[in-house]
């Protein structure tokens, strides 16, 4: 009888697959990435290694000694106290306690301070509180501590912001107006992010984490790249991490460019280049998990995309491996077996510089 190994679906449920089935799914996921991104296949050895990782007879696996990489937990400071119903655990505590617990108890290599709403725009009215918290945290921590949030261009559109919703304009065939709205929103977002970080740097922040760049399409990325450029110019030593929202930069505008390159339609290996050119220190590639496919399919696809990005990038790559990305199942409490396998695969096969 053929041996079957316990593995997972993209939504986290337990399934059983043979080595041959695992390999077939890995290859299919890889083929999807190579086809979309026009990037190279993984080698036979790399595919075999991925099969071995998935089929390892242990609940939790780990990287080989000496291959460890820095691991951070973005938004981790509010994951103890915060409770957004999907990822915080709601234990009453402060953000200082959150960062210190991650540093001293959990062994995080870097940390990030963020606020519960986690977008840049709403930081403006509470900036003094954020500065005060950053100062207290910096006085008490040793690991690099960034300030982080989402560029979230969506907050600049009606009903949350001053610019008409480009989605509505687009549906009404008002394409030029939709594009103008995106451009206007991007300018505001760049200005807001830059202003917020001027304040946070004055309070001792090590730098900034852009979380989910491109979540609102190419305009979101355009705004972020210009903010990165402005911050690098003003603060030559600032740490800048640019983490993406997905493997493909969605083209809601379609014509926005940075450094002469159209942003819409970029895949991770192309995103890495512009992010670096803008002045980021760390690129955070993201590959979303397909919940209807197996962990093997998702891992084959994610590792292929990320490996190409790691190769193309001139700066370190810290792959995003949260819920529903990087081969991690899309589930509130992703199983440890799936998380540790995806983690090991990204380090040992994709060659990431951090997580």
């Amino acid at each position, binding site marked *: 009888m053929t041996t079957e190994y316990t593995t997972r679906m993209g*939504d986290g449920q337990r399934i059983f697959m043979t080595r041959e089935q695992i390999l077939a799914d890995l290859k299919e996921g890889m083929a999807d990435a190579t086809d979309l991104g026009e990037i190279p296949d993984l080698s036979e050895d790399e595919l075999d290694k991925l099969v071995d990782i998935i089929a390892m007879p242990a609940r939790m696996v780990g990287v080989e000694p000496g291959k460890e990489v820095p691991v951070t937990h973005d938004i981790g400071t509010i994951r103890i106290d915060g409770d957004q119903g999907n990822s915080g655990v709601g234990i009453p505590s402060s953000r200082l306690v959150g960062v210190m617990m991650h540093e001293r108890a959990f062994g995080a290599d870097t940390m990030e301070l963020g606020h519960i709403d986690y977008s840049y725009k709403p930081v403006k009215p509470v900036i003094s509180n954020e500065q005060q918290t950053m100062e207290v945290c910096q006085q008490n921590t040793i690991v690099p501590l960034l300030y982080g949030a989402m560029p979230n261009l969506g907050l600049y559109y009606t009903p949350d912001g001053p610019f008409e919703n480009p989605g509505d304009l687009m549906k009404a065939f008002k394409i030029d107006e939709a594009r103008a709205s995106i451009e206007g929103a991007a300018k505001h977002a760049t200005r807001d992010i830059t202003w917020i970080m001027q304040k946070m740097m004055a309070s001792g922040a090590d730098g900034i984490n852009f979380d989910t760049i491109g979540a609102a*399409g190419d305009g979101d990325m355009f705004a972020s790249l210009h903010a990165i450029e402005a911050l690098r110019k003003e603060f030559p030593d600032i740490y800048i991490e640019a983490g993406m929202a997905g493997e493909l930069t969605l083209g809601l505008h379609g014509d926005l460019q940075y450094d002469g390159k159209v942003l819409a339609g970029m895949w991770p290996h192309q995103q890495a280049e512009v992010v670096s050119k803008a002045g980021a220190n760390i690129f955070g590639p993201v590959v979303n998990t397909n919940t209807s496919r197996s962990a093997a399919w998702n891992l084959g696809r994610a590792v292929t995309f990320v490996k190409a990005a790691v190769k193309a990038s001139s700066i370190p790559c810290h792959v995003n491996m949260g819920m529903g990305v990087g081969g991690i199942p899309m589930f509130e409490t992703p199983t440890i077996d799936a998380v540790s396998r995806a983690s090991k695969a990204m380090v040992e096969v994709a060659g990431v510089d951090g997580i």
Partner: protein
Amino acid sequence: MSKEEMFKELADAVISCKKDAVDAAVEKARSEGIEPAEIIEKGLAAGMNEVGIMFERGKLFLPHVMLAAGAMESGVTILEADMPKDTASKKLGVIVNGTVEGDVHDIGKSIVSTMLQSAGFEVHDIGRDVPLQDFIDKIKETNADMVGLSALMTTTLPGQKAVIEMLKEQGLRDNIKVMVGGAPATENWAKKIGADCYAENASEAVAKAKELLV
């Protein structure tokens, strides 16, 4: 020119996103005596389908999708004169689409609406953070064939289930298809709450809507 070549020319004209090219290709197909329904289905709609695939592959972007849809609509308008009145301007189905109450995420849902509209459905996008009763009211008002329920957070996902329960309570469930989507939604979740389908992305939403309604 063979029929197949003509269909390809029509599809290519849609993919070019140029209204003039589509109008010219439609006029040419008409002069060749091809049936309007065939021009639409095998030429224009096939081209629009390809546009959807190119969008998912990052080769075309949302403005192009809308330009292509506008060009196709122009071609269909030309053909309406040749079509029986009851079939002219007929949409593939009526869909109410929105993000459930408590969830302010708009962009993914909006892309799905745009793609459904471009594919030939009559779409009523009722926005984001939509009170659940508003879905029911809009379904009644438009006599919708399908409702799309989007949620991007695990906290708002139960809103999808609640709408299905409300449809049942009000005796509407048997007459409408329910599609769910959004990051935390899954195939299993769709089955669990009794939705008719789950769509992973915008092009899958179009494909599944066609499967269920066309």
